[in-house]
């Protein structure tokens, strides 16, 4: 076995040093009835690299990579170009194979990039402070509701009908066991809901996604004012972080907590994971924040260095009184994010956002010209298209070409007849004019 360095002679010598007759004897505390004497039946024996690679490559070949055909899928996961240097640096063993930085003297590399990551997230969200990442955008959203409840000492959250249904469901599952009252507005394909009207004196927060699931963009300033007038917090959800390079920051519009899916920057699609949740807030709420935080300090020589800090919020110190049970974060995904954003910089990040937006506008125009109905007036890089007939059936049919036409709304909001003909279409810098023409042909060719 190529990963196991001990020889049989080593094992015997070690057993002699231990004074044990056999390895089996070391398992003496295991009840005899439960101690297996042979490898478990029905499972294959060990294999070489070549055999494993062959088997898994065969499985990989049965999938259609999004990059192998025109693809317009978004809805919380976006295919962007990640510079080659990101993955090259990410796989340096000192990053890849290190653990949580519990010993800061030998993990200054991890700690410094986390400090830089936190700063970048605070800058793009327009907030004071960000943590070192959560599992994904949806779990960050659930944690934001719980945090708003702690801050306001209230127990009712209002969820927008423009929120990604998976975020809504994760939030409902996570907060439901704690008896949180969730007021969930119906799906809002026209972008017309009145969230302010749903706020009452018991509301801890309003959770609003911008751009919404359907692609609408909004100035959230009036909503923030309405929240604050009732003593509630505004939680802003961003599922496409590239939008923050062009749209006004949630912080500038009055958000109290911003949560986002960070996958778009630095991270591949990976069939939905691992991704990374971004979590940012105001300075005054920092002690109610979940998750790891890295802070600046000095060492014994007075030199600047970094450590994990404010751990009295966390489970390994506070146990059942912690702000969250989270332990592992998304370290490597955060590293990919921070490296990609460092490469982009101010010019690249704002330029990437403009490019995404302009290409989406280009496609919307092409579709409209072909007689296809685009519901949105305003959007960032994703919008809602009305097709004739069932959108899911159309998407399945086009997949055979292959053309990945977008996400049918019915996959996210099932069982609603009025949404069955809606298709969510996303465009990124990876979308070519040929890709656009293929979609226009597929959706509008008949008109």
């Amino acid at each position, binding site marked *: *076995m190529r990963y196991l*360095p*001990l020889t049989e002679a*080593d094992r015997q010598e070690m057993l002699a040093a*231990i004074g044990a007759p056999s390895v089996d004897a*070391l398992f003496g*505390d*295991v*009840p005899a009835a439960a101690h297996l004497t042979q*490898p*478990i039946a029905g499972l294959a024996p*060990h294999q070489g690299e070549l055999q*494993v690679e062959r088997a*898994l490559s065969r499985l990989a070949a*049965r*999938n259609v990579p*999004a*990059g192998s055909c025109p*693809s317009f899928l978004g809805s919380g996961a976006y295919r962007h170009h990640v510079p080659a240097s990101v993955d090259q*640096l990410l796989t340096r063993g000192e990053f890849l*194979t*290190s*653990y949580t930085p519990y010993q800061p*003297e*030998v993990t*200054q*590399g991890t700690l410094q990039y986390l400090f*830089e990551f936190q700063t970048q997230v605070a800058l793009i969200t327009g907030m004071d402070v960000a943590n070192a*990442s959560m*599992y*994904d955008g949806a779990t960050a959203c659930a944690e934001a509701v719980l945090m708003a409840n702690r801050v306001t000492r209230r127990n009712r959250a209002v969820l927008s009908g423009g929120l990604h249904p998976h975020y809504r*469901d*994760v939030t409902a599952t996570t907060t439901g066991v*704690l*008896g949180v009252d969730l007021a969930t507005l119906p799906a809002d394909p026209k972008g017309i809901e009145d969230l302010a009207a749903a706020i009452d004196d018991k509301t801890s927060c309003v959770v609003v996604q911008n751009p919404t699931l359907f692609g609408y963009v909004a100035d959230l300033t009036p909503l923030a004012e309405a929240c604050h007038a009732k003593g509630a917090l505004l939680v802003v959800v961003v599922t496409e972080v590239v939008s923050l390079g062009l749209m006004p920051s949630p912080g500038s519009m009055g958000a109290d907590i911003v949560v986002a899916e960070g996958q778009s920057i630095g991270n591949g*699609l*990976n069939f*939905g*994971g691992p991704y990374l949740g971004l979590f940012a807030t105001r300075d005054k709420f920092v002690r109610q924040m979940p998750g790891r935080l890295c802070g600046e300090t*000095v060492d*014994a020589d007075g030199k600047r260095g970094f450590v994990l800090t404010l751990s009295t919020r*966390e*489970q*390994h110190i506070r146990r059942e009184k*912690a702000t969250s*049970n989270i332990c*592992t*974060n998304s*370290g*490597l*995904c955060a590293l990919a994010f921070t490296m990609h954003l460092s*490469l982009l*910089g*101010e010019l*690249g990040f704002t*330029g990437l956002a403009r490019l995404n937006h*302009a290409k989406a506008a280009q496609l*919307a*125009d092409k579709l409209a010209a072909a007689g296809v109905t685009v519901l949105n007036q305003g959007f960032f890089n994703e919008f809602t298209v009305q097709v004739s007939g069932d959108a899911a059936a159309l998407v399945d049919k086009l997949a055979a070409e292959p053309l*990945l036409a977008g996400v049918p709304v019915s996959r996210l909001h099932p069982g609603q007849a009025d949404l069955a003909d809606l298709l969510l279409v996303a465009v990124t810098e990876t979308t070519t004019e040929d890709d656009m023409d293929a979609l226009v042909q597929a959706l509008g060719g008949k008109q």
Partner: protein
Amino acid sequence: MNTQGRKTTPDIESAAATDVGTYTGNRALVHEEPLIFELDNPGVTGVDLEAVPAVASRLGGLKAREGIGLPGLSEPTVVRHYTRLSQKNLGIDSTMYPLGSCTMKHNPRLNEKLARLPGFGDIHPMQPQSTVQGALELIDQLAHWLKTLTGMPAVAMSPAAGAHGELCGLMAIRAALQARGEAGRTRVLVPESAHGTNPATAAFCGFTVDAIPAEANGRVSVEAVKAKLGPDVACIMLTNPNTCGLFEPQVKEIADAVHAAGGYFYCDGANYNAIVGRVRPADLGVDAMHINLHKTFSTPHGGGGPGSGPVVLSDALAPYAPLPYVVHGADGFRLVEHEGEVEGESKPFGRMKAFHGQMGMFVRALAYIMSHGADGLRQASSDAVLNANYLKARLQDLMSVPFDGYCMHEALFDDRFLKDTGVTTLDFAKAMIDEGFHPMTMYFPLVVHGAFLIEPTETESKTTLDQFIGAMRHLAGKAKAGDAAHFLAAPRYTPRRRLDETAAARKPVLRWTPPAA
């Protein structure tokens, strides 16, 4: 040819020179590296984008944003920055990293390569299912291995990490209790020695936590559990092997007692690496157990994640597994994503994550499992336990052992051997850093004083273990000989010496801000 009389051997005096400092502050291979914000060269970028098509803005009247404050860096600057940061880190690639309870084993590079195949890395979670049959089959194959290895009938694949898996298990228990009409069971029994996530998860799931004291031998006794059982107990959360590195000999009796009292048995599987292929948790009466793929099945920890924490479930809990999950359909594999698609006994308690789970980790874990096979996995757990016992045997005369007898995959020591030396567990750990090792887990578990929890894993060779043992014996001897100063000044050879954590917490600086003009 050396024709200029250039010295090819160092002279003794210059080699003995002490640290005189450098102009740059760098020390040869280790550089002082500023923050990216301090490297800012406005106007520079590390990416070249195509020209933006000229179209009218569709931002619905929103004004385009300006002045975010991100620094401008070229690709060479970025590459050098992160290379230098990496050089301030230890990884399992660099040295032995025996963090107890963390299972820092070798991360095979084949797994990295396979996770990056476009057929896995470049598929969208919302693609039509006909275009991702291979991905669904991979999830199904990994699920099959996990179920067969544990003997459990079902597995929930979506939890993102160990603590997330605990939450999944407790939510399934909660749902099962509600279905039985016993929502009044709100108490969760958690041994004092448990990981902090256990009580935190129970509270996060709306339960109250009741601690079970550890016995003098480091185990949990069935009598102590029975004393706490009652009609309001939802479950016990028991780590096995436990955090003292010991197998719980009464685990089956404890499971039976909990079941007889109407509760469930949640097993914290953080230490599963010790028993893979030798013990099936199903045979111990487990109802739910998370498996940290980033520990037992070697997916890289990456400086703190991402993890992956599938949860195996008993027949009693299987119906409550969360959405989404993979089933065998008439024409291939199918992902059940909504309540409306659910068939049979399934009554999912909800959804844990935006999409289907940590696919990137599933690919790596399956490659690891297939590489080892049933025989190799059993050999791996055997070697992990052998390595830990070897360390314990070779160190127990100089260090102090709280619990006698064989251990499982990790060796636990306490700080009695440092009594009156002026050296603490922390000081000792810092001296281990200077010796070139990552320290063990320290001050955990809480049930012994000044704990040293050492988990070597099966991927360390005897040569490395012998060197580690030599270093530990050397340090223990030095401490006992009264050389506290050696420890108090450690570490000396790291990019930074000891850091002031108190100052960091008192006045938190959690981000860079531009210097005042």
